[in-house]
Structure formats: structure tokens, C-alpha cells
């Protein structure tokens, strides 16, 4: 099982990277061979990087794109990579791999990730790949680029969701609705106004 992970965040201290490093570890423990595509900056995602991406995708069984949501969408870095891959779709026509998306943001509600996940679905459709579903994590800002094991309460939705996602990827299955629902729940079970008050207290202290 060859799995490619694309890190769509331009951030140095990236929560996307934390999530995908956690996923990589779990996939490798399950016996998968994992390739991580992780240009640190959009400018690094030049032709050589796209060549490397195409090469990895040609023999992949699954692709997982992980990206934060900036103003409703994946950041420029992720979108421009998708454009580069699409421009060379003929080279990937022979491999109908399974596609998974992970969108996340500091805002807690799944609705913030809705358009981003739809864009990923359209990307998958253009390539003729198999859409296997997307997860939307909220409240990820406090992860702050740390390993998921160190994120306590703030990683309590992400960690079990990745545990559950790995056997699904390995079995080439689609993400069940129940997992999508569980992953999308707020990691801090407080009413919204109280949550906003607590976040603003944290903001003042920092």
C-alpha cells in the first residue's frame, strides 16, 4: 500500500504538518509505505517538485491532502499545487487512486471547512480518481505545530480520528459518515459564546 501525503500549509509551525506526521506514523505502523510531499513555501513547489509529485502519484494507492482553511479555502500553496497536478493529468490517467482530504481551522464549526472540501472533491473528479471522503477538524490552532501526543484536550478529536482513518485507507474504503461526524465535533464541549469568551481570555493572556 503506497500512500502519498501532501502538506498544504505554508506555515513554518504548521498544524497540518502535526496532523499529517501523526497520520504518517500510524500508516507506517500499519505497514504502509508513505511519501510525504511537503514544500515549506509555495515558491519551493516549482517544476522539480511537481515532477517529484507526479512520480509519487503514479504508483500511489491513495493520496491524502491535508490543508488549513484560510478564508473558506485551502491556501494558495495547496491550490497552486493542485493546478500544477491537473495540468499534467494525462500522466496520471492510468492510476485511479483513492483520494482523501483533511481540512482544518481554528474555528470550531465544520461549516468553515465546507467549501474547501468541495474544492477537493472537484479536484478528485477532474482527475478521475475515487473520492473516499474528507474530514473537517475544528479548533486546531492550539495544536501550534506540536506532535499530536503533546496536544492534550486540543488533539482529542484528531488523534482517534486518525486511528480510525488508517484501517480505512489500508482497506481502500470510504470514510463512514459516523467518523466524519465525530471528527467534526468541537474538541472543547462548551456552548459557543462561552467558548469565544474562553478563547478571548487565552488571547489576552498571550
Amino acid at each position, binding site marked *: 500500500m503506497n500512500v502519498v501525503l501532501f502538506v498544504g500549509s505554508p506555515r513554518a509551525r504548521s498544524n497540518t504538518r502535526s496532523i499529517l506526521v501523526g497520520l504518517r506514523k500510524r500508516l507506517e505502523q500499519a505497514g504502509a509505505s508513505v511519501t510525504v510531499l511537503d514544500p515549506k513555501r509555495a515558491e519551493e513547489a516549482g517544476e522539480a517538485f511537481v515532477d517529484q509529485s507526479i512520480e509519487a502519484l503514479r504508483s500511489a494507492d491513495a493520496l491524502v491532502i491535508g490543508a488549513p482553511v*484560510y*478564508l473558506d479555502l485551502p491556501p*494558495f500553496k495547496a491550490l497552486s499545487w493542485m493546478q500544477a497536478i491537473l495540468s499534467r493529468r494525462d500522466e496520471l490517467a492510468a492510476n485511479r487512486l483513492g483520494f482523501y482530504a483533511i481540512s482544518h481551522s481554528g474555528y470550531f464549526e465544520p461549516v468553515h471547512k465546507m*467549501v474547501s472540501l468541495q474544492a477537493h472533491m*472537484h479536484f478528485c473528479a477532474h482527475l478521475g480518481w475515487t473520492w473516499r471522503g474528507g474530514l473537517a477538524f475544528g479548533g486546531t490552532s492550539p495544536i501550534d505545530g506540536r506532535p499530536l501526543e503533546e496536544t492534550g484536550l486540543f488533539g482529542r478529536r484528531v488523534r482517534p480520528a486518525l486511528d480510525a482513518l488508517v484501517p480505512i485507507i489500508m482497506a481502500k474504503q470510504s470514510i463512514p459518515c459516523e467518523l466524519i461526524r465525530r471528527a467534526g465535533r468541537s474538541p472543547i464541549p462548551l456552548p459557543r459564546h462561552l467558548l469565544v469568551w474562553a478563547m478571548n481570555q487565552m488571547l489576552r493572556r498571550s
Partner: protein
Amino acid sequence: MSTIVLTAVESEEGRRALDGVLRAAPDAVEWVDLSKLDFGPCLACGGCEESPRCVLKDEFSAIVPRLAACSRLILVTPIFLGVHHPLMKRVVDRFMPLGGGPFTVRKGEMHHESRMETPFSLTLIGLLDADAAPEEADTFRLLASRHAVNLDCPSHEAHVVGSMNEVAETLTGVLSHPGGAR
């Protein structure tokens, strides 16, 4: 009442069509052709969470304060995967200083407070390829409504068209409504 039009159209034919409309527009309409603008992508450094000033200094830096002050913003973009063309997204990522600081609840959702004194009305005009799925048009309309919530816009509208001529016609029509998005 000032209007800013950001366009992410790279073809010569497309830019000529826009040029015809925007050169005839009133003085209060500012056209920013992103294909000619030298600007970098957002670094996601988080600096704008504390300060409204972006750390990047380039040709887009001077436009951010004008965006914060305009009463209407019009984005003209080819539709890519149901959303903005990457050139337009490169600039939309740079909108982040328009919000920031404390969190608030807006339309039942968590958001950063807007830093704009009077947020702009928003119009999206998208050019959809003939071979794109109709669902991409639905995604584009949804994007306009999500942007409106995120940017605290008092009103918004989205137009999906199939040719540059239709883009020019739609833009002419939109500019003829002084009140902006309905």
C-alpha cells in the same frame, strides 16, 4: 462610495474585454489587474492576528488599507475547482489582516472581529469552463456566501458566466448599480 475591482484574468483576450469596461468606469472605481501586480503569497506568520499590518511589503501592501475603506469589492476570476483561480486565491489569502484580534459570534458561528469600519458589499464574477461540472457553479455561489459571513459583508452576490464577453457584460451591469451587491 468607492469600488475596487480585482481581476485574475491572464489571457490577453480576457484582459482586453475587461479593459473596455473598466476604462469607461467612473473615477470611484479602482481596477487592480492581479496578472500585472508583483505580490507574494501569505506566509501564514500569524502577525495579522495581533496587528492589522501585514509583514509583507510589496505592491499589494498599499491596496490593503484601500480595501478596508472601500464600500464595494468585486472579484473577477476564472473558476478553478468551483472556487477562485490560484492567482485570485493568492490575493484573497492576503485579506486576513481585514479581520483578526478578538473572536466573536457572527451568524451563529465563531469568527474574528472585522477590522473594517464599514465592511464592503461583495460581488464575485466567475468564468466557468465549458467542460466543468455544473456543481462547480454551486460551489462558487456557496463560496460567495461564505466569504460574506467571514468578511462581515452587508450584502453579496455571485455571477457564474461562460465567456469573457459575458464577464464584461455582467461587470458592466454590476457597476451600473451604485448600491453594490443586492
